[in-house]
């Protein structure tokens, strides 16, 4: 194994550059180093002007998503040795505007996320002291997979529909809506229906499935969307055929 590897890093300073450029850095190739360690080596030793987001280094915070050799990944969970002898191309997440270098503007996602009400919606607002929500292991298993989402937005970077239709609610937001829809303690499914069963909601998805391939946490957003399509279709048709029935 060689001692070093070349990182080809996308650089872009909107105030100074007309277009993104690529800068090459040679970093040590160590078995235990993730791509993020290589970037931190650049930042600390070679070029302090390089900008990128990171925080936890352990696949929990969802900050360090970037495009590595064309694929959206968490750079803390992607190892340099997997790409040896290199070079490794590191670019910002696709489908998002670039703020600087590898940092992307995530405002669109942050706007969509609360729109699906990703919290427990209750019709009876009882105080915390008055109520205890019990749940069986089977009820937990219904939604647990979807609760693993860390909002890293790799699924948005991978989604070709989101690339074409920026209004698409997107994989993570819909999977999170399902996380609460399928929770036995939640009563807000009908509120989410009005947003999810629209042309910008589940109907925009053409089941490409790249979101599920890209997810670093084993969530299956494509499956969540497909499953919700049946719910949305039956609920929508029921309200058309039987307008007198509530919701």
């Amino acid at each position, binding site marked *: 194994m060689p001692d070093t590897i070349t990182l080809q890093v996308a650089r872009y300073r909107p105030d100074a550059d007309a277009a993104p450029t690529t800068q090459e850095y040679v970093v040590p190739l160590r078995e235990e180093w993730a791509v993020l360690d290589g970037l931190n080596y650049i930042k600390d030793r070679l070029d302090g002007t390089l900008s990128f987001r990171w925080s936890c280094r352990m696949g929990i915070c969802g900050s360090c998503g970037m495009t590595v050799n064309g694929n959206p990944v968490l750079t803390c969970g992607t190892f340099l040795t997997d790409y040896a002898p290199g070079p490794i191309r590191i670019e910002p997440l696709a489908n998002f505007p670039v703020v600087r270098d590898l940092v992307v503007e995530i405002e669109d996602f942050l706007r969509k996320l609360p729109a699906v009400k990703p919290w427990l919606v209750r019709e009876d607002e009882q105080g915390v002291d008055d109520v205890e929500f019990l749940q069986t292991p089977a009820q937990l298993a219904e939604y647990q997979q979807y609760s693993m989402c860390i909002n890293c937005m790799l699924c948005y970077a991978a989604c070709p*529909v989101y690339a*074409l239709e920026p209004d698409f609610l997107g994989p993570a937001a819909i999977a999170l809506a399902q996380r609460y829809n399928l929770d036995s303690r939640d009563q807000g499914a009908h509120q989410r*229906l009005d*947003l999810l*069963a*629209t*042309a*910008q909601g589940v*109907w925009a998805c053409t089941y490409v499935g790249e979101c599920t391939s890209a997810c670093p946490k084993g969530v299956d957003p494509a499956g969540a969307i497909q499953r919700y399509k049946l719910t949305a279709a039956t609920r929508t048709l029921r309200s058309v055929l039987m307008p007198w029935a509530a919701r």
Partner: protein
Amino acid sequence: MTMAKRSSSEAMAWLLFSAGGVVSALLVPVLLLLSGVLFPLGLLVPEHAHLAAVLGHPLTKVVLLGLCMLALLHWAHRFRYTLYDGLRLKRLSVPINLLCYGGALAGSVWAAIVLF
């Protein structure tokens, strides 16, 4: 976020697409195996009168027409999105919808004429 309206046309199109996919996946391989492999190779030789009676039965015709209609609607939905996203022609959505769903309707009418 601005609230879009719940889309009942998309719901209907997707239900028919979905039904078409299921029905085609279940029935088409069986029909292909029978009429495309087993009968021509003589591995299964149905009595002509029996086969004619089965095909002439109104229930068979209704099932086959249903299969043709749903399979065509499955095609229409998929082809529509292939044109929208694959060829990036969403701005032409009106003629594309006419072509796809109109084509499925025309094919269904043709199937009905052939069957009945």
